[in-house]
């Protein structure tokens, strides 16, 4: 599988570290809404088909990437920098974003 890093170009999957599901957004750290935390920590859409996910180009530019990949065929529909995608890697808020 090749992932086309927007910065480095097409690279072998072994250069990348999978960071998991890119659909979730971390609740505000001061939130006490246990359902929201439960959804963030434990619940996954796990689709058979197009899947939003976060990859780290660990063996390259070290950018977090928002990838849309088909879980049945491994075909990659799009790769963007995660910061542009908006779903920040691991729920980190964008700099300057409101809590």
């Amino acid at each position, binding site marked *: 599988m090749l992932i086309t890093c927007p910065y480095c170009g097409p690279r072998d999957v072994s250069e990348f570290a999978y960071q998991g599901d890119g659909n979730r957004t971390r609740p505000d750290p001061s939130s006490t809404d246990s359902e929201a935390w439960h959804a963030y920590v434990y619940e996954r859409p796990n689709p*058979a088909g197009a899947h939003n996910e976060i990859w780290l180009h660990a063996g390259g530019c070290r950018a977090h990437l928002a990838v849309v990949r088909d879980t049945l065929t491994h075909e990659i529909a799009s790769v963007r920098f995660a910061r542009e995608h908006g779903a920040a890697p691991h729920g980190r808020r964008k700099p300057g974003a409101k809590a």
Partner: protein
Amino acid sequence: MAEYSVFSLLRNALSGNQDWKPAWRKPNPKPSYDVIVIGGGGHGLSTAYYLAKEHGITNVAVLEKGYLGSGNVGRNTTAVRSNYLLPQNTRFYEHSMKMWENLSHELNYNVMFSQRGVLNLAHTPAQLDDYARRGNAMRHLGVDARLMTPSEIGRRVPGLDMSQQARFPILGGLMQESAGTARHDAVAWGYARGADRRGVDIVENCEVTGFLRDGDRIVGVTTNRGEIRAKKVAVAVAGSTGRVMQLAGIERMPIESFVLQAFVSESLKPFLDTVVTFGMGHFYVGQSDKGGLIYGGDLDGYNSYAQRGSLPIVEEVMSEMLALFPSLATVRVLRSWGGVCDMSMDGSPIITTGPLPGMYLNCGWCYGGFKATPASGFCFAHTIAKDAPHEFNAPFTLDRFSRGTVIDDKGQGPTPRMH
């Protein structure tokens, strides 16, 4: 009256083997059943078997989208063990082990269960301490476990590189002698025949395409072979759990699906009479009675529903094997394949009523479902028949994640691919 015996073998040999009954019928689905089990894998078939045998519920259909044995029950590496740390897991898997010990007799079908032991190798002092802790936890609950010294290991597994020049020198290991392997296809076929003879309809090539509802309640399924109604619908579809639950309108589950690869080498003379696992990576190997080495390693590291694997993991598994057994460098690989694993958030399974009225759920087996086959079916059948869990599966609820009672044997946290 046993269907397979010395006498039936002789009788059928004399009549040219023309009179054997098929092990299971090929029935068309009836319009309705008491219980539908979705998924004709090991767990679905054993569930149907124990529903009929233990609870007298014989008006049951098992719906399988492919052919029997086409899923994970025919794709695993056949190891059976109960070497867990946490008591919930140990009790459940040890119950399974007890059922394995009598399974060939119970089913009158030779599942070739062989208690040849499973040895976990330790390569650091800390790992050996951790194995001592796990071994003590096992012994505390009545499971056999024994720490082995390097010299004992060298005698037991002569092929291992025991030298200090090994990539990761072996400092010891944890052995469960009562663990071992079983013939995976035979388990599926034996349970299928046992269920069929008790009246269960096993319907192959019957894919569930949706659920029938009466209000909130699940009252049946739609399939490519028409609508089938049922009082109770049980889901035991392993790697396809996400897909099937989405048909029921449940969009999110505490599960991610990953591919796990397995490999078989060409046949060798007897080389390895136990199952060995590597402690510095994810690798395990055993030898089948036919002589092939059966081995595997880590998951392909990203969500996948493709029943085939990627090359980086092939390379990793082979290099791990050679780190342990340098003499295998010239052995050829016969074939490899992949199976889709339903990795749960804490690495432990889910066997429960719900999540919808009329529905029962069995999933989250990660890559350890095969050894659980008897206990999983036994407990799931109890849960379906009584609408309440058996004591062995009571901890394995779906709501344990929201209640904070996760069963995380590895202490890994909610990253399914790491379990």
